[in-house]
């Protein structure tokens, strides 16, 4: 079973070939460079507009949605009246819209545009949808979440899609790989189905790092809600960490050449954590061979957290340091210290929101600290803490402070297998201008088994 899972993981996510694995980190095979066709910006923009037309017509003709009944009069009204905040559900605003935005962004990436060049396409696609694709007045929060979230998810999902297909530009991928990659990267699949076969996909999206890791945690989750007496509850939980590249070992070549995803689902609660961090820029401030390594890093972050203490989501950019401290040949410590600006965050609270919406929107600031003791490249003890401040500009007149923290202890039993105990702590403090403060805490404990899959683990310290 273990070998089967490992083989499946390697088959899905491994770089194109053994040859690719021996190449420099994030290098691109020469043949794919030779096949790289010129970029087509207008076609990239057109792809986003086509997505809007298809989605609008599907909503109108198939789902019979009234909001999709657009006319020139509705377009003019939307242009004349301008932005408002909408009252959509949390999951719609914080996940569905970013996924929609990833289609616009990847319209650029699969037409030869770089990460930076594809950013305007996410904005153009989102702006045109908000003004021309719906009868509703354009929603500012949708515009921000679709654009910025679409950039983050688009780049991550596009790279995952390329890793699943394992097809060099111009060559077909097996059908089953295309089907698995489809939900991650529909635009890439469309490009391949319509004859493009990835010839114009930007080379950085086709590149893969030497090292990536998929680590699964499964077990029991015990939670408590301090607002409710006898609220202790047990559920089954599964948590996944996917690390693509290594912040210190993968030289910076392009945005998102290193990224990390953490997702968690539990019985009865569904998805209640999805956090993604992608490196936008990295600069080593110590030598590659130094005993202790430090790197100045700029990351883009996407976060979605859902538990009784807080539903929090947001798009942010963080700046800070990734460090690795070598203690011995097998033992080391990794640390991260980052400060971030929240471009737009969303957080719920009992008195938050407006109309049917029960959460606030606002920009903010935050800090994140993390320390991991590693044994032969595998984490044994991890501690992390994060605080986010959100100033509401839509909803209640409030300032929200959200804290997340945790301590994770894992005992390696075999090379890829371990058992452990994790604790997590969620806390929210909401300060209102016209009513008492409101606080809520939500601790959890996880008893888990871990399974580390992938073709390589991160380099030992």
């Amino acid at each position, binding site marked *: 079973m273990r070998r089967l899972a490992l083989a499946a993981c390697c088959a899905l996510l491994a770089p194109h070939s053994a040859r690719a694995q021996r190449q420099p980190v994030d290098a691109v095979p020469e043949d794919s460079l030779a096949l790289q066709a010129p970029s087509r*910006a207008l076609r990239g923009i057109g792809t986003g507009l086509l997505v809007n037309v298809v989605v609008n017509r599907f909503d109108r003709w198939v789902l019979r949605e009234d909001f999709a009944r657009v006319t020139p009069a509705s377009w003019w009204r939307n242009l*004349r*009246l*301008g*932005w*408002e*905040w909408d009252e959509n559900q949390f999951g719609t605003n914080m996940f569905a819209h970013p996924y929609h935005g990833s289609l616009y962004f990847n319209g650029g990436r699969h037409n030869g545009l*770089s990460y*930076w*060049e594809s*950013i*305007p396409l996410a*904005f*153009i696609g989102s*702006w045109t949808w908000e003004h021309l694709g719906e009868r509703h007045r354009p929603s*500012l929060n949708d*515009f*921000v979440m679709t*654009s*910025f979230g679409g950039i983050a998810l688009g780049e991550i999902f596009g790279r995952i899609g390329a890793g699943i297909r394992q097809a060099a530009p111009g060559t077909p991928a097996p059908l089953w790989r295309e089907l698995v990659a489809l939900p991650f990267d529909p635009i890439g699949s469309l490009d391949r189905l319509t004859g493009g076969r990835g010839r114009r996909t930007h080379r950085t999206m086709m590149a893969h790092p030497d090292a990536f890791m998929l680590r699964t945690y499964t077990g029991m989750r015990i939670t408590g809600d301090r607002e409710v007496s006898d609220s202790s509850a047990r559920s089954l939980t599964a948590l996944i960490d996917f690390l693509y590249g290594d912040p210190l070992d993968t030289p910076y070549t392009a945005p998102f050449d290193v990224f990390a995803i953490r997702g968690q689902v539990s019985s009865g609660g569904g998805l209640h954590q999805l956090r993604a961090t992608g490196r936008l820029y990295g600069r080593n401030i110590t030598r590659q061979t130094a005993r202790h390594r430090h790197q100045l890093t700029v990351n883009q972050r996407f976060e979605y957290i859902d538990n009784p203490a807080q539903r929090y989501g947001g798009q942010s950019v963080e700046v800070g340091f990734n460090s690795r401290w070598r203690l011995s040949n097998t033992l080391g410590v990794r640390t991260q210290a980052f400060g971030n600006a929240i*471009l*737009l965050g969303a957080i719920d609270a009992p008195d938050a929101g*407006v*109309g049917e919406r029960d959460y606030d929107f*606002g*920009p903010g600031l935050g800090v994140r600290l993390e320390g991991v003791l590693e044994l032969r490249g595998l984490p044994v003890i991890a501690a992390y803490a994060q605080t986010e401040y959100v*100033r*509401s*500009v*839509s*909803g209640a*007149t409030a300032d929200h402070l959200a804290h997340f923290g945790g301590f994770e202890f894992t005992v390696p039993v075999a090379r890829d297998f371990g058992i452990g105990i994790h604790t997590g702590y969620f806390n929210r403090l909401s300060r209102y201008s016209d009513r008492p403060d409101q606080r809520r805490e939500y601790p959890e404990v996880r008893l888990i088994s871990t399974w580390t899959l992938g073709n390589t683990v991160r380099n030992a310290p």
Partner: protein
Amino acid sequence: MTIRRFGPVFLALALLGWATGAEAQQRQRTRLWIELGGGPGVGLISCANCDRVISTAGASSNFRIGGVLSEKVLLGFDNFTFVNRAFGLDDEEGNIVAETSTAALSVLWFPGQSGFFAKGGVGVAYGNFTVDAVDSEPLVASEVGLGLTFGIGYDHPLSRRLSLTFNAGALVAAIGDIVLRTGRVDDVIASLYQFTVGITVR
């Protein structure tokens, strides 16, 4: 900065630019560059549960400084301001001077070899509303929030280090609640559509 005051200057520079532009090099923004411009703007102010959207014209200006990320992509820092003296957030309020300002980190994308570019950015917005009153001190309401900017532009070279820059863009300032004498105005969003002409120096 008003159109009446600087309009003739911009017009003269525009004509001069077209006369000399053919001989100048196309890429104007290399390494460090600075852009300063001004022009008319149309402002919209909307709020939650408001019956209507207020729109009015005013003067706007922009200052941008930045560097180069790649051959086609630039990173800049934008500052926009917009002033209007006749806003009426509430019918019962008096004359209102509305000032919005946004400081944003922007990406400029030059898709081709010409000077045409698209831009987008995000940053901090500041809104200041001064309400005149006959029998009391003016009321000043200020808020800080989310600022966005996006639009298109064109660099027309005048010389090796100078270009004339045309911008058509939108600036959105989401500044939250504004407290006036007659009550709280919820979830204010100020949108500015501006058309500016300026000078870019590198």
